[in-house]
């Protein structure tokens, strides 16, 4: 074989083997911030809850936070978290028994911090109830048959040979910090599938992850509204809860619309009597 043919053969082997290595086995990436891992980091047995009455003092001060992930920078970005927490906050703000709502940055929560960390944060932000938003997102990556065209080099930029499947689960668990009791929870989930070229996969996948969080939160918000409305009714009948006035609250004597309407009825009766005389 001529020496030039050998060089070409070696070049092709090197290049094609590189391309072939692009068609690797399917992979997946997981980002998770688990509320169980955060609150019960070293639990080997189920936590023993003492049967006690949870005392609520409306208007309840609520803190809203994302559960910290296992490693720094995992999961949604801080800006994205703030935007999603804003949506959760607005769900709470439409209920009269909820007072102030604080957004707690993730940096204030320590991974696997447990209730001790939650107590510290609750004291720092002066909240009685904390809504913890946990997340679990898995990104599956597969290649399809078109990926073979990546061998053409140009195909790596044009052909959508990489598939992604982003499955997201978000969950808001609302805890009373004092009694450490779970008051209610509301879940939301989403699945986003798509394909991208090898060159554009990273960006597309990242956008899909952000969209996955958004869609899951969008699904969670109505569930959260339903739970909040249900909880408002439940505390009136459930013996495990006792609603008490907050010490040092401000009181108002207010006749409200019904009182004013009754006053007008009485005045109407009085005027009718005066006219008949």
């Amino acid at each position, binding site marked *: 074989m001529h020496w030039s043919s050998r060089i070409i053969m070696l070049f092709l082997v090197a290049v094609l083997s590189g391309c072939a290595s692009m068609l690797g086995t399917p992979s997946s990436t997981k980002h998770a911030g688990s509320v169980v891992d955060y609150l019960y980091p070293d639990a080997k047995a189920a936590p023993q809850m003492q049967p006690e009455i949870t005392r609520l003092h409306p208007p309840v001060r609520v803190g809203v936070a994302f559960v910290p992930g296992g490693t720094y920078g995992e999961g949604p970005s801080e800006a994205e978290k703030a935007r999603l927490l804003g949506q959760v906050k607005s769900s709470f703000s439409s209920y009269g028994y909820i007072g102030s709502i604080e957004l707690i940055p993730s940096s204030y929560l320590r991974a696997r911090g447990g209730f001790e960390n939650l107590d510290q944060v609750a004291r720092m932000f002066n909240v009685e109830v904390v809504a913890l938003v946990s997340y679990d997102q898995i990104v599956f990556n597969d290649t399809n048959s078109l990926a073979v065209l990546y061998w053409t080099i140009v195909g790596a930029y044009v052909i959508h040979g990489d598939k992604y499947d982003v499955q997201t689960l978000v969950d808001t668990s609302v805890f009373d910090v004092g009694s450490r009791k779970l008051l209610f929870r509301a879940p939301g989930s989403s699945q986003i599938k798509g394909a991208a070229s090898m060159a554009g996969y990273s960006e597309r996948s990242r956008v899909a992850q952000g969209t996955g969080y958004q869609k899951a939160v969008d699904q969670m918000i109505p569930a959260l509204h339903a739970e909040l409305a249900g909880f408002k009714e439940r505390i*009136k009948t459930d013996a495990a809860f006792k609603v008490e006035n907050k010490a040092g609250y401000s009181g108002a004597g207010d006749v409200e619309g019904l009182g004013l309407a009754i006053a007008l009825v009485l005045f109407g009766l009085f005027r009718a009597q005066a006219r008949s005389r």
Partner: protein
Amino acid sequence: MRKLDLADLRSPTLAIAVASVGLAALQDSVASGLALDRDAFAGEPWRLWSCHLVHYSWRHALFDAGAVLILGNVAESSFGRKLVATVLLLTAPLLSIGLMWWVPSMAEYRGASGLAALLGTMAVAALWRSQPQRRVVLMCASMLFVAKSVCAAMHRDSVIPLGLSQGVLVVWQAHALAIGAAALVLIFVGPAAAAFRLMCAQLRLCRSVDGTTVMATSSKHASR
């Protein structure tokens, strides 16, 4: 067209309504200085009266002032301005003291609805007596208000702010105390006043109920 009678402007309930709306226009710091809190028992006794004139918002002030004005008109026409003014003057601090005793966790109180409930009870009593054919309507109106208060107390809606400022809760106890106070006024003060007038009439002193005159003439009678 009916001329404006200056006597109409001497109404105690009109004064309360105007003061309520006027104070709502002032800064919140003024209202804070007039609201009911523990300072009322620590050298600031005016708070026992003034708390019924200050409010948390325009809506709060207008609703309360409207109710006081409407119900006050009926009560004054039925019982007379002097009696209504006296009852309001004496009952206002008693309501405040009663609230501080009944709701010790409350740090501050504002609102004229206690006085409105007092006047409303007096108005219902007057109409009950003068309009026996409409007692069903009066019964329904009274039951509606009582049912609203009972629901608020039983279902804890009272601790939920209803369009008031953040953290301000409706105190249904003010209405309950006012209704109780009005009942006491109607049961005891009415007959007592009638008995006093009767005594004066017997002594031929019914033209004047001035204390000095009564005492002087009584001593004259005694000397005889």
